[in-house]
């Protein structure tokens, strides 16, 4: 009997890929069948991810070796190091995997109403599924070169998706910028992988981490990896592609690209904590640098969002600031090591990853609803939409409160952990972060006021509430936000703590490959 359960890591790649390539064929037959097919594929992917998560949380790290007779076998009989591609799934990978599949499903659900077929967009769902495949691959793989391949799949499909709104002039400019910067980042990552491969004759993260020395090439690779992945994650001052890309992409794409950016962030965290996690590397200086860049991200993101007159661009700058909050927590943990408040900071930073994609994602989806209903992006031409779009207004309000870190939403739960742990590193950082958070509230209130409140404007007389599929996806995110906000302890114990402990113990990740295989 086929034990499909064992093959879930491979199926998580194969199923969306198969779905992606069948989609254009189905689209030629029937548009509705295609939409249902896409949703079905993504629901199947999500279900498999939940099963995998269950497995990892109960049984620990799961290994999948491609091409081996027994998937958990990491070493071929005659060789002492792994030579095949190995997927290695621990608590952190599962945490990111859940983010990707949930956001991917919601993005597809939202797109069904949002993306109109008249635009001549045949390949939209193919690219979306490829983007989700790339993200999942980045998060599951334990192989450096494989990581590079998936990062490139992600950037190519994301760039093509950003240019989806062909009728909007600047979308191609945004896509070009995104693609150029992504490919530069990926090329430097490949160069770093070359440095590591040339030294250790291996591509497996665990194998390289276990034999890591302190040579010139190792440190050069560290520079290149951190630089490249920080560029992909949008850390200031390399954040400038982010407002361009997020602001111009259709919002259903933006939320998926956000998840892809967070997958790059995952790569950064994974490389810092696991690949360079051995004790001969003292990354505390790098941690300090990351904290500094995170602080710049927060300040630039919050202040620049205030002066934007474009609705999506303002929220995109807020997304830059949110990336800063995550890396503030994670960089603190890298700086001080895993001591009592370092671990708390790490927990806060990881928890904030999920919260950010929910909060800012909801804001993007709600602005997408506004754009869908009014075909207008400029703040000056909008107003009084609360009269016409009741549900969208409520969802935007929830997203606003959560993203600005107001209690009792989820954003507050993670931000307070970050504030209080960073306070013990340096009170000034914490105070700056709190002030920026207040500024973010001001920004969102400005957007909320000018879009939803005020009198009905004459050019927006015929506005109508958006279709159900869009409302449902927004409602699901709002529900998650409220649940995460009301029961943060539950989420931290069950989702975040395994992820944080997986990062804090690189030995278990290494030993799973080197000792776990027969």
């Amino acid at each position, binding site marked *: 009997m*086929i034990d499909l359960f064992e093959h879930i890591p*491979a199926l998580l790649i194969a199923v969306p*890929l198969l779905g992606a390539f069948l989609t*254009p064929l189905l689209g*030629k037959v029937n548009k509705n069948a295609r939409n249902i097919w896409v949703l079905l594929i993504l629901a199947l992917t999500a279900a498999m991810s939940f099963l995998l998560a269950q497995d990892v949380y109960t049984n620990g790290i799961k290994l999948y070796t491609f*091409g081996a007779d027994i*998937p958990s076998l990491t070493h071929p009989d005659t060789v002492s190091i792994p030579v095949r591609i190995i997927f290695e799934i621990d608590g952190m990978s599962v945490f990111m995997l859940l983010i990707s599949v949930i956001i991917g499903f919601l993005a597809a659900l939202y797109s069904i109403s949002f993306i109109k077929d008249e635009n001549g967009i045949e390949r939209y769902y193919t690219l979306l599924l490829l983007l989700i495949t790339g993200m999942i691959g980045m998060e599951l793989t334990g192989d450096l070169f494989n990581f590079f391949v998936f990062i490139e799949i992600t950037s190519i499909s994301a760039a093509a998706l950003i240019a989806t709104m062909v009728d909007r002039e600047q979308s191609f400019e945004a896509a070009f910028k995104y693609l150029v910067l992504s490919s530069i980042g990926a090329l430097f990552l490949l160069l770093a992988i070359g440095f590591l491969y040339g030294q250790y004759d291996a591509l497996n993260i665990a194998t390289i981490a276990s034999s890591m020395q302190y040579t010139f090439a190792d440190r050069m690779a560290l520079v290149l990896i951190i630089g490249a992945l920080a560029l992909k994650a949008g850390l200031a001052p390399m954040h400038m592609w982010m407002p361009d890309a997020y602001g111009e992409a259709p919002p259903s794409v933006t939320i998926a690209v956000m998840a892809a950016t967070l997958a790059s962030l995952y790569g950064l965290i994974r490389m810092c904590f696991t690949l360079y996690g051995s004790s001969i590397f003292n990354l505390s200086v790098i941690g300090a640098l990351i904290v500094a860049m995170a602080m710049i991200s927060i300040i630039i993101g919050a202040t620049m969002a205030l002066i934007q007159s474009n609705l999506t661009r303002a929220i995109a700058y807020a997304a830059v600031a949110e990336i800063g909050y995550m890396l503030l927590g994670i960089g603190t943990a890298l700086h001080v090591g895993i001591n009592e408040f370092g671990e708390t900071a790490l927990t806060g930073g990881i928890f904030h990853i999920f919260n950010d994609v929910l909060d800012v994602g909801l804001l993007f989806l709600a602005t997408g609803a506004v754009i869908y209903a009014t075909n207008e992006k400029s703040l000056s031409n909008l107003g009084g939409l609360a009269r016409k779009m009741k549900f969208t207004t409520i969802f935007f309000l929830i997203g606003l409160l959560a993203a600005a870190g107001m209690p009792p939403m989820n954003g507050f739960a993670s931000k307070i952990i970050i504030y209080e742990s960073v306070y013990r590193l340096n009170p000034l950082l914490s105070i700056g972060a709190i002030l920026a958070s207040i500024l973010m509230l001001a920004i969102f209130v400005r957007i909320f006021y000018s879009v939803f409140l005020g009198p009905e404007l004459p050019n927006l007389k015929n506005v109508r509430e958006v279709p159900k599929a869009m409302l449902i996806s927004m409602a699901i995110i709002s529900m998650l936000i409220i649940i995460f906000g009301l029961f943060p302890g539950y989420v931290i114990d069950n989702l975040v703590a395994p992820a944080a402990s997986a990062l804090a113990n690189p030995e278990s990740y290494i030993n799973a490959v080197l000792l776990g295989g027969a």
Partner: protein
Amino acid sequence: MSESKIIKTISSIAFPFVMIYGLYVILHGHLTPGGGFQGGAIVASACVLLLAGYGSREIAKRIKEGQLSVLESIGALGFVSLALLGISTTFFYNFLAGSHSIFGRIPPFGSNPGDLNTAGLLPLMNISVGIKVIAGLFAIVMVLAFVTWKMGGRKQ
């Protein structure tokens, strides 16, 4: 503007040779350097030769971009489903190798000229990758050629 006679003649003559060489590279991917992608790129460049010789409008009358994208999907589907066929043992399991059915002969050990009828799934995967690459690359070049006439840069 009509295409130059020299280009037309040369591309007509070169086309079959380049095509056959590309198909050779695809089919012998498991024995010699090359494989699906390289061979596919060669075949696609043969098609691009035609594009250069006869002009994109002439080609557009005969081949539609939609047909190419269907072909591309078929190639990709073939690859993924071949990988999935061996799932009873593992993903990408080569169940055809050594099975004495198609491509199933066991290759001899040591230096030898190579036997085409070996390697199991690998030739099949090379073929599906080849189909995908031919269709994909040709579609890319064709679309880039179409865009230039929508721009009105070069009127014919």
